[in-house]
């Protein structure tokens, strides 16, 4: 029908340019496969770089500096009240952080010979993609890797289209510092962005439907964060639902179940993310979706039910984390190149970049018990850490879960500043099936927070 329709023939077509997609594409190219990435925005980085991990961490760093400066008054150093230039802050985040990384990815792609095509990709069958971009185009491939990621989930039952009601993407644009901000959702996104806005000056009210912040995370780890958040935020309502949102006179009126109506200047909806698996034409292929969540079903080699299609990242399910997607991307690339690769990772670390940070990997105490494992658990309070004292933070905790029978480290949870960095050693321990004794007998630099892992391990051996 279309005259002069372009058809490209490639070895691998990667759909989606996020961390899972570009990791897969780079590895495919390294393995000598001709590879294209089709990305709706025509760029590499995805939600992680443009509307997730990276910009949020840039803003959280600013928040950390502000609150650190405030705390410095206790130590006899007064910087005065911070004056925040939003324009400059936005520019720094957008150009110096996000822009720089985006340019870096683009040049890596170029160096590896990976072509990035802008446009919406739709599968016509198991070996053909139609790309609806500036021009209509088709790509025929031997293998495709679906890496379309996820998008913020809307608030069920509430339909208010307004600039004042933001999802995480909009909130990271930092349109203003609203006087009163309602955060709906006490998961990591709501807590991270709530922290940013609260530190920059908003009065933040957080509403969480369940009875605790960070549902599913070890309560021992959540407690120190909860104490801090209750101080930082104007209000935290647990076990509370938002039943209505109404825009009125430049404000948003929110009805909180059991609390009545309250007025806010802006609302952040952070109730989770959902897979971007619809509208891709997957029904024209053999790939199958799960009934719950519409995730693309894969096996441990990241293969879908269609022999031509692989899938990686958020679109394949929880945990929706960039680093899981990146590892899967490399597995998928190696697998379709005929290597015996498998996503057999035991530990996927998770980090909540709040203040204090929370990080964990492997099994929690509760998970280990529910598997019938006899556990030994050590909790090392940072109050006993020299390094924690020197930075004025004694509220941290390092928790070690070991299998009593074998002495293996099966899980670690950490709460405290820098937990996101500290979890790396723990992840290596769990992934390599290290023993508690291995951790205890490894020299840890003094004075550092990493000693807390060694201390926790030692206490189990005693």
């Amino acid at each position, binding site marked *: 029908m279309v005259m002069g329709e372009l058809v490209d023939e490639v070895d691998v077509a990667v759909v989606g340019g996020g961390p899972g997609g570009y990791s897969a594409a780079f590895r495919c190219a390294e393995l000598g496969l001709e590879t294209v990435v089709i990305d709706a925005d025509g760029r590499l980085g995805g939600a992680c770089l443009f509307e997730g991990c990276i910009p949020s961490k840039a803003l959280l760093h600013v928040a950390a500096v502000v609150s650190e400066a405030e705390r410095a008054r206790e130590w006899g150093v007064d910087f005065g009240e911070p004056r925040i230039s939003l324009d400059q802050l936005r520019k720094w985040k957008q150009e110096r952080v996000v822009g720089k990384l985006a340019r870096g990815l683009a040049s890596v792609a170029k160096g590896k010979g990976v072509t990035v095509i802008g446009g919406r990709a739709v599968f016509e069958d*198991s*070996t053909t993609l139609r790309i609806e971009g500036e021009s209509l185009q088709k790509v025929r491939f031997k293998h495709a890797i679906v890496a379309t990621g996820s998008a913020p989930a809307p608030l069920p039952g509430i339909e208010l289209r307004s600039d004042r009601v933001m999802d995480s993407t909009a909130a990271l644009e930092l349109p203003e510092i609203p006087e009163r901000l309602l955060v709906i959702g006490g998961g990591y996104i709501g807590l991270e962005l709530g922290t940013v806005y609260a530190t920059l000056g908003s009065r933040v009210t957080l509403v969480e439907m369940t009875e605790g912040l960070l549902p599913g995370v070890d309560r021992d780890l959540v407690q120190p964060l909860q104490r801090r958040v209750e101080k930082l935020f104007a209000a935290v309502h647990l076990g509370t639902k938002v039943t209505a949102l109404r825009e009125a006179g430049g404000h948003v009126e929110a009805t909180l179940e059991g609390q009545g109506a309250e007025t806010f200047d802006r609302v952040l909806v952070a109730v989770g993310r959902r897979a971007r698996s619809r509208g891709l034409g997957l029904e024209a292929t*053999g790939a*199958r979706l799960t009934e719950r969540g519409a995730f693309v*079903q*894969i*096996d*441990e*080699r990241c*293969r*879908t*039910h269609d*022999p031509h299609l692989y899938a990686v990242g958020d679109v394949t399910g929880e945990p929706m984390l960039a680093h899981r997607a990146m590892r899967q991307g490399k597995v998928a690339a190696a*697998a*379709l*190149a*005929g*290597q*015996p*690769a*498998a996503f*057999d*990772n*035991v530990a996927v670390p998770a980090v909540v970049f709040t203040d204090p940070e929370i990080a964990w990997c492997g099994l929690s105490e509760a998970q280990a018990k*529910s*598997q*019938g*494992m*006899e556990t030994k658990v050590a909790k090392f309070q940072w109050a006993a850490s020299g390094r924690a004292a020197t930075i004025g933070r004694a509220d941290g905790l390092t928790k070690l879960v070991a*299998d009593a*029978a*074998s*002495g*293996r480290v*099966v899980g670690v949870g950490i709460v405290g500043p820098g937990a996101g960095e500290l979890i790396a050693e723990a992840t290596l321990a769990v*992934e*390599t*099936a290290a*023993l508690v*004794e*291995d951790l205890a007998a490894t020299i840890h630099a003094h004075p550092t927070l990493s000693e807390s892992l060694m201390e926790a391990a030692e206490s189990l051996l005693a």
Partner: protein
Amino acid sequence: MPRQFTLPDLGEGLTEAEIVAVLVHEGEVVREDAPLLEVETDKAQVEIPSPIGGRVEKIHVTPGQTVKVGAVLVTFADGATASAPSRAAAATPTAGVAPAAARSSRVAEAPTAPRASAPAGRPAPAAPAREAAPAGAGPVPATPATRRLARELGVDLRTVRGTGPGGRVLDTDVQAAAGAPAGAAPGGPAAASAPAPTAAARPPRPATREAAPPGPAKPLATIGLEPPPLPRFEQWGAVERVPLSHLRRTIAERMTLSATLIPHVTHFDRADITDLDAIITRNLERARERGVTLTLTAFLLRAAALALRAHPHFNASLDPAAGEMILKRYCHLGVAVATPRGLIVPVLRDVDAKPVLEIGRELGALAQRVREGRATLEDLRGGTFTITNIGALGGTGAIPIINYPEVAILGVSRARPQAVVRQGQIVPRLLLPLTLTFDHRVADGADGARFASEIVSLLEAPERLVGDL
């Protein structure tokens, strides 16, 4: 209190099995569902998983031994160390038997996806997405590098006993399990007592994997007719006596049974498959893109399934004791597959309900499982009619023997271009020789001729077979 684990009921007609490998050793603590033994029945080689978690106190069998259903295989000490809340552990040993049998086929089947570590440029067809691991079966303790080595060597880590600290599986354990330089078995006495190339060295299991030495020779089961004694052949020259493998003995027994019991009739016919052959050739590529290797056998199966619908007497069994014919309302077709170990007949389910592409897809997967020795019991039983296609090996015709207790079998030989007279002209046509052997007790020559010609006319009008191409 020790618990005894007996050979589970393996299903219809199977009363004994040969122990191929013992995958655990005395004193070892095993998890529920961990592979315990590998046995070979006359149908398949299967892994028997442990019904409970606990310490293996005594192993009562050795490889090569044939055991009857109900015989004690393993005694478990009280499963004190396995504190996992195990459903089976609570059950009595006998009660545990049936679910174990059910599991055995699943366990043998489940690892197919990871095992397909073959050239993955073409992933195994329809690889099922991984199901959640059963509760309690945690990850195998090994570093990522060791896990990669295991995948490269095709070793299923779950079957390897780790000798590292805390039970960690080391590179050397993996190499030993792969049967690499057998050298110093790092596992000491424990590893030594478990045959080194056990179930561990699975995936690239070459098709030539001759089952472990078959052990001492055993007499074939008799069927009432005693064969006369053999002469002393030694008087005419030197001879060698070789024990039959379990599979060979089974084939021998069943063929004797069939040939002795069933009055066989064979009907010959030929199908002009010139058009069908063209259709196959034209669609080869398209089918391949959909992951299917299109073969004549897939069409034969489809044709037979359709013909059986119209001739249910050939989709039946005879119950002489009851004086009844058992007509089967399902159509599961067996396909004879030659393997280096001997003839095996895997079964495709509900062939009459499937389009030809799907038949081709399942046939490909099934034949591969069979050749790799990975077929499960479920793959091999429940057939209602059998097709044996020896065309690849040449010949102009063969008279097959019925696969008891079925009542008919279709033999197919090589198709050859031949001069045929059509409307007074001699034209070259591709003719496929067919031989239908059936049980004269259930059908007569005329029935057989009608059934065969139904198959022929389906093959000659291939548009009736290919709804989905």
